[in-house]
């Protein structure tokens, strides 16, 4: 079956521009996560969607970052007025509802964002 799909795979843009990153999760996965990974670093949690619940936005670094998940499926991460420090790989993951037992997360290959 299809895995998590992210687009674009690479994005180069000028400082100050807005960018939109897209994530198509695995069908049936109600949980969707966005992470940011800087070079050689671990993953920084950004935002978490679970079903129809209000998203957990606690990881968003500033109000320039926002995300939507339409129809419980596709998600878009938007970064407004990009800054050079926004340069990183943005990873999306999806899973079945985490619950008490925990669920493995399935990752896309990420969008490599470069701000000039």
């Amino acid at each position, binding site marked *: 079956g299809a895995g998590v799909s992210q687009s674009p795979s690479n994005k180069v843009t000028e400082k100050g521009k807005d960018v939109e990153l897209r994530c198509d999760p695995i069908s049936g996965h109600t949980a969707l996560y966005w992470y940011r990974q800087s070079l050689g670093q671990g993953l920084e949690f950004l935002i978490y969607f679970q079903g129809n619940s209000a998203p957990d936005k606690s990881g968003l670094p500033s109000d320039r970052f926002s995300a939507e998940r339409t129809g419980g499926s596709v998600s878009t991460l938007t970064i407004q007025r990009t800054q050079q420090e926004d340069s990183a790989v943005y990873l999306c*993951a999806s899973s079945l509802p*985490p*619950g008490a037992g925990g669920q*493995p*997360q*399935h990752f896309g*290959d990420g969008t490599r964002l470069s701000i000039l």
Partner: protein
Amino acid sequence: SQQGEEDPQALSIQEGENATMNCSYKTSINNLQWYRQNSGRGLVHLILIRSNEREKHSGRLRVTLDTSKKSSSLLITASRAADTASYFCATDGPSGNTPLVFGKGTRLSVIA
């Protein structure tokens, strides 16, 4: 804030040797997971161990969990060049319904 911290940061071994990576965490967990990341790719789930489990095996992988020490280890036996990757541990919170918190990873190089 960082929950899991992997040790060592980097590890280089010969093919056929065993590789051991450690993870320490700070708060109570419901489960701990290990992931692998090849260069330029997303993370791939390897194994999940629950807080009431002490050891788990999957093929050449063996994971242990010591909740009293808040630590876990990942052992890869009979390593292969294809095992070269970064390995991350990730923990959830006591309720389980929280985003995972990832460490910075161990970069493993297996030399043929």
